């Protein structure tokens, strides 16, 4: 009885978190470009009721820009994590199910991706694709799958040695059947949890790369770009430009991370027992 209560509570809490994220995301998408556009008359205003986050050097409202930036970051983060998680499952499963040669090659590949600092690798990929959205997406997707792939490889190896899988094989079930009925139910939660836990990392990387100037074009309202602009006005005392958007980014990342942990608890009760 109590257990059910606790579980329900967790479900409600997670749903609330997802709802908050969805509202922020929707706000960012729905706010028209013009709303954030400002005039020089309102430039460099500190936070006030009218402009909760203040305005920037061009008089644009930073609160609206931050919201729009967050929705951009979330879109990129989600897309990149999804691609990355798919790569991870494919590589992990192939590595565990394939021959020793395939396993060795894929392990080498993981070592290769881990062998170059991710920031550098994303810079290179972004450079190759002429910066912008595509480069950012490809770069983040290409660098985030390694640890999940290792996890899934271990999981598949462990599942394959289970008695019930061996029994199914003896009973003449095809490997496709085994994949569908024995492996997939175990891998699906891993996939979802891995994806959600990858999401905050992807957002952080997006912000970092945009900050360096390799992401979206400067007129786009991305958090990294707002923060990069804020650097120029730091010594002028415009603290709100750096502090408030960054703080919002950190809260969103923490929120996503927490939601991911909850989801992990809900989907994979064993790991949550600790």
């Amino acid at each position: 009885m109590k257990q059910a209560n606790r579980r329900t509570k967790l479900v409600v809490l997670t749903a609330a978190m997802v709802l908050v994220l969805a509202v922020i995301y929707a706000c960012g998408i729905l706010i028209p470009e013009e709303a954030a556009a400002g005039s020089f008359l309102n430039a460099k205003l500190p936070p006030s009721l009218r402009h909760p986050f203040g305005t920037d050097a061009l008089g644009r409202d930073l609160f609206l820009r931050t919201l729009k930036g967050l929705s951009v970051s979330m879109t990129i983060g989600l897309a990149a994590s999804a691609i990355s998680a798919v790569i991870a499952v494919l590589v992990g499963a192939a590595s565990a199910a394939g021959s020793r040669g395939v396993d060795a090659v894929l392990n080498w590949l993981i070592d290769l991706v881990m062998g170059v600092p991710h920031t550098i690798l994303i810079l290179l990929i972004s450079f190759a694709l002429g910066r912008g959205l595509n480069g950012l997406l490809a770069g983040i997707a290409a660098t985030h799958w390694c640890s999940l792939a290792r996890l899934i490889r271990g999981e598949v190896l462990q599942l394959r040695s289970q008695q019930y899988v061996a029994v199914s094989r003896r009973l003449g079930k095809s490997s496709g059947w085994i994949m569908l009925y024995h492996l997939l139910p175990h891998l699906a939660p891993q996939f979802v949890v891995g994806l959600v836990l990858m999401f905050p990392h992807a957002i952080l990387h997006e912000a970092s790369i945009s900050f360096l100037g390799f992401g979206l074009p400067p007129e786009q309202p991305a958090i990294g770009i707002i923060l990069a602009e804020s650097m120029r006005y730091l010594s002028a005392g415009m603290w709100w430009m750096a502090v408030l958007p960054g703080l919002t980014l950190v809260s969103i990342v923490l929120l996503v991370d927490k939601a991911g942990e909850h989801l992990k608890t809900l989907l994979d009760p064993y790991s949550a027992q600790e």
Partner: protein
Amino acid sequence: MKGTLKRLARVFVGYGIKILSLLLAVSVISFTLVSASPVDPVQQYILGLGTAVSPEQRAEIESYWGVHEPPAERYLTWLSQVLRGNLGESAIFRRPVADIIGERFVNSLALMLCAWVLAGITGFALGCVMGMYQGRLPDRLLKKACYVLSSVPTFWLGLVFLLVFSVWLKWFPIGFSSPVGVLSREVTLWQKLHHLALPAFTLSFLSFANIALHTRQKLVDVLNSEYVLFAKARGEGPFTILRRHGLRNILLPALTLQFASFAELFGGSVLAENVFSYPGLGSAVSAAGLQGDVPLLLGITLFSALFVCAGNLIANLLYGAVDPQIREVGK
């Protein structure tokens, strides 16, 4: 002893082959990526010259870059030059890439080393405190703080530190590795350290939460082990246990982890150096990427891969040298 040496040699050779294959792959991939880029390196090079060039001069530069040769051939030419130590000439700095890397690496190394040591020591100490107080208030508070910190992006933390410590409190300069307008010969060590402090402090935040949480977990495992139970049965108190058994069992794995984290360290330094306008490899690589300086971009990429591999090699050797179960097998 002889067996140990032999085994170490075998590890070296095995790992050497792997490093070579990885570096070769990195060179192929990064060369392919920059070749695929819509940015024209010749155009960038000419832009960097700052003067107009005649069509003949342009053709000469183009043939130097091998623009008309097939990519594979261009790669081999480039690789053979790299193997001879010639990384080409930087378009931004108009100097050999190897020289720039050498100079800037000294700066970056100072930054990364300070941050690495600082993060290692504070992270380890905090991890020990958390482990000793497992489940109690200090542990719970510190654990929360570590989780929050690991979600804070380095570059934003740098901005906040810059705002607080440089703009408001005026304790540290705003950027660069030495005072502006002072000849590099006349910069004192103190001034250098003064400029290094804040970037290094920022960069150390990148990893110390991670080290602290890892150390905590290891210490908790050790404290729950049967051998610690036996040590208690023999009258050892908590701090004797930490000294006699705890440190012995967690210090070197933590150090191994530290060496294996060179990739994050390097990546973090790119951001920290950009925030603080610190003239190291990190600010050079982003400048190279933004301004299409292909030779410098390739050079630093290769160098960063080499740097990470060196860290991993040390981690692997440490791992083998530390654990008697692995070390003594050779005897």
